């Protein structure tokens, strides 16, 4: 892998983009392309899986293997590919409806595996592509443009849910803080386990509450409503971290993840290096998992005959 030769252009494609002008998705796409290039990955080594929604179109614009899955199922598809071909860099992207409503069961259960992939959730608090219904992250009582009434359901906090589900890397970024986002995406990809990155994403068409101007604090003298976690915040859990430290880290996590005061924090909230990745665990079970992963498994010889020798299995049930 020759890092020097890869540029952001390698991940760009010439394809008409149909997001609304000013959509936060542009920022995320941009950051993703930069992040991939910055890591020196080559396009064919990357597979980007998208859910269904405006967000789920992100991979249309990335030069890589791009898979537009089904609403809510982006994680299972991505997991299948990564399990079968552990050499792939796998990124899953999708909306808050995709991930927290119809996909919430997969979100929770993916947390159990610590498979080495990165999931980026585009949180715009609405269902963009279906015209602005409340998404599961819209706070109770909020009324965005398309709602006939304020929403009567509470909003889910994706970071809290990720923590409860066992994600070993948890971060939050803002769509138009591209530089910050590039760094976060790269950290997430580098993390050798399951990484979850929430991105706050303005939807100028349907979310009239949390707009780019709102995030930028235009109404309060340009003081942005998002800011990095304090340098003193330590997200890292190392192998052997004692219970008290762990509890303290969790308490700090919750305080920052759920804080109701501004600014909204961005950065790495959680980085648990104590849990072995799923790949490592799989090698314990299947010794040739990495040398001959499912994607590369030899199936037939040159004559189209099976290479498997069933003899020992037949012996188990043979009556001789």
């Amino acid at each position, binding site marked *: 892998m020759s890092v020097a030769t890869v540029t952001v252009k390698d991940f760009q494609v010439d394809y008409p983009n149909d997001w609304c002008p000013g959509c936060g998705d542009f920022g995320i796409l941009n950051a993703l392309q930069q992040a991939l290039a910055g890591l020196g990955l080559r396009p064919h080594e990357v*597979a980007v899986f998208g859910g269904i929604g405006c967000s789920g179109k992100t991979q249309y614009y990335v030069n890589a293997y791009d898979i537009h899955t089904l609403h809510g199922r982006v994680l299972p598809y991505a997991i*299948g590919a990564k399990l079968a071909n552990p050499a792939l860099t796998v990124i899953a992207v999708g909306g808050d409806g995709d991930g927290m409503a119809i996909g919430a069961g997969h979100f929770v259960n993916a947390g159990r595996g610590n498979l080495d992939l990165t999931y980026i959730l585009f949180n715009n608090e609405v269902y963009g592509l279906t015209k602005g219904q409340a998404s599961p992250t819209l706070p109770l009582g909020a009324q965005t443009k398309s709602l006939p009434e304020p929403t009567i359901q509470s909003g889910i906090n994706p970071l809290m849910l990720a923590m409860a589900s066992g994600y070993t890397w948890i971060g939050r970024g803002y769509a138009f803080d591209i530089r910050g986002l590039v760094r976060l995406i790269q950290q997430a990809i580098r993390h050798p386990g399951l990484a979850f990155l929430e991105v706050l994403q303005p939807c100028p068409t349907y979310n009239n509450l949390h707009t780019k101007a709102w995030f930028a604090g235009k109404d309060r003298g340009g003081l942005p409503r998002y800011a990095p976690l304090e340098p003193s915040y330590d997200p890292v859990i190392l192998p052997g971290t004692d219970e008290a430290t762990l509890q303290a880290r969790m308490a700090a996590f919750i305080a920052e993840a759920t804080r109701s005061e501004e600014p909204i924090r961005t950065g790495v909230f959680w980085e648990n290096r104590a849990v072995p990745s799923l790949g490592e665990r799989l090698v314990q079970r299947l010794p040739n998992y990495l040398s001959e992963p499912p994607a590369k498994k030899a199936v037939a010889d040159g004559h189209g005959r*099976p290479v*498997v020798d069933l003899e020992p299995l037949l012996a188990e049930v*043979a009556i001789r």
Partner: protein
Amino acid sequence: MSANVVDIAWRVGGPQGKGVDTAAGVFGRAAAAGGFFVFGRREYYSNIMGRHSYFDIRVATHPVAVHRNPVDILVTFETETLVRHALAVAAGGLLLHDAGAADVPIDRMVFLDPPLQEALVSHLEEAGLPPTTAGLLEAARRRGVTVLSVPYGELAEHLTSTLGASRARAERMINTVAVALSGALLQYDPELIKKGVALTFGSSPMTELNQQAVDLAYAYARETWDLEALPLRLAPRAERPVRLFLSGTQAVAMGKLAAGIAFQSYYPISPATDESVYLERHATVPTVDGGTSSVLVWQTEDELAAVATASGAALTGARSATATSGPGLSLMTEGLGWAGINEVPLVVTIYQRGGPATGLPTRSEQGDLLFAAHAGHGEFPRFVLASGDVAEAFVDAAQAFNYAERYQTVVIHLLDKTLASTLQTVDPFDTSQLSIDRGLVAEPAENGAWPGGFPRFRPTESGISPRPLLGQPGGMHWLTGAEHSEVGRVTEDPTTREQQMEKRMRKLEVAAREIPAEEKLQVYGDPDAAFTVLSWGSTKGAILEATQRLAAEGVQVRHLQIRMLWPFPAQELAPFLATAQPLVVVETNYSGQMARLLTQETGTKPDHLVVKYNGRPIAVNELLEAMRAILAGKAGPRYVIRNPFE
């Protein structure tokens, strides 16, 4: 029955979790070890422990692939089994029951459903017998059944004192004792029963203990009963070729392994789980060149995820499959469509069980055919295969991957609970007879070789286009569940839509032309007979045997078994349909689903539809009765097989 022909039906029953299956396994293996063909049928409740289960083992000098009623030997340990099955013992048969059991009135038995209770009571009342267990035993005696009381309690104590087994262990070994008693009553070679024990318990210390129990039981039987006076005999055969004795789920798993399955996802569900558990236990197997070969078995959080995960894996080039039953298929529906439009080679193994909804989760039904043929909104090509027996299950499981990869689409392999839990002797599987077709995979290339993206979905004459595998250099393209251009770009262009629809659907037409007739349709019995029975799936065994029995009586029957249900072999069937008289369709469902498909695709309606939908497989005698009614002109267009006692 001539001296050379043996056909013994043996049944054992008891509460779930009490070793009924093990007992049947021992008996079946013991019989197989004596050179017999063996068929086993298992019935059990959706319950972990305590509810009634039973196992039929049929032992014969000819291949058998179906159970029959009545049975020749019934082994019971407690009242429920006795009550449920006493009427099923043939005249001249044997019935073993617990000498220590009290006489119980049938109408006090809360575990019996009212219809069965009523049927039993009225049967005894008609016979002028008391409606109790004693009445049932007396009825059996009057019918000519030899009723043998076995003092299980004493025998267990004996095992404890003689073999030093704990009381709990002794009680478990009573199963083996009962099997051995059966062997003794048949004057079967006790060494073969011990071999059955060894094959069942393997290298565990239980083997020796149970083998000693076999000897004790034989000794007890010889002491207690006048064995020579008993009517049934089982003498080992001279020829004892090596055979396998295994279940449908095992056969499917082996077929998948032979085909090189690399990834299997699943969510536990009866009766499909056993297959995945088997694969997980045999995840690493040797290769012919001395290497090792693995399959990654992945338990997902549900079936939505199972089908998606397997599809994701398939995109990387792994031969991928998932296995479930009806409720899982309902949840996989959305994933089938995605695989269809993305031309993903995906094998979906379905073990049908009684539906709808939770239905009869541990009983059988051919209830998902029309659903499998039409599952998913919109239109996409798919294959639907159905196996008729354990040997076919192996071959079809392997072949499914070839269809999936050659035609780059979804292959649904239909089995049912009956086949899943069938135990059967079959000739050893020969993997060298299998061939592998991996379909059209794109060659790796330089990145940039296809500037606009690799034309993964370029329309071709066959509808098949080369597919690059995720991760392969130079093959980047887009995949989407939306309609797309040849590089996989989302499009709503009307012309591109037409081209892609036609490309995908054309694959089925090509397949229908290419695939040899014998992979779609098999003809048994007399190919020239007018009396034609059409079947699919697990009713095969019953029809084969009924056909043979009728042939022996001089009635020629032609049996057509459809193995590929979709694309439907209308062309291959046409000449047979033209000459069928009458045309009889046999299915284990309510509405005659294959009959419907037949009419849909050929315009032909069967003259008689024979169905059974009580959740149990069709016994050979039940089918014979139906066929005789048809032959006698006494059957209407719809003939329902009923049996309140199973």
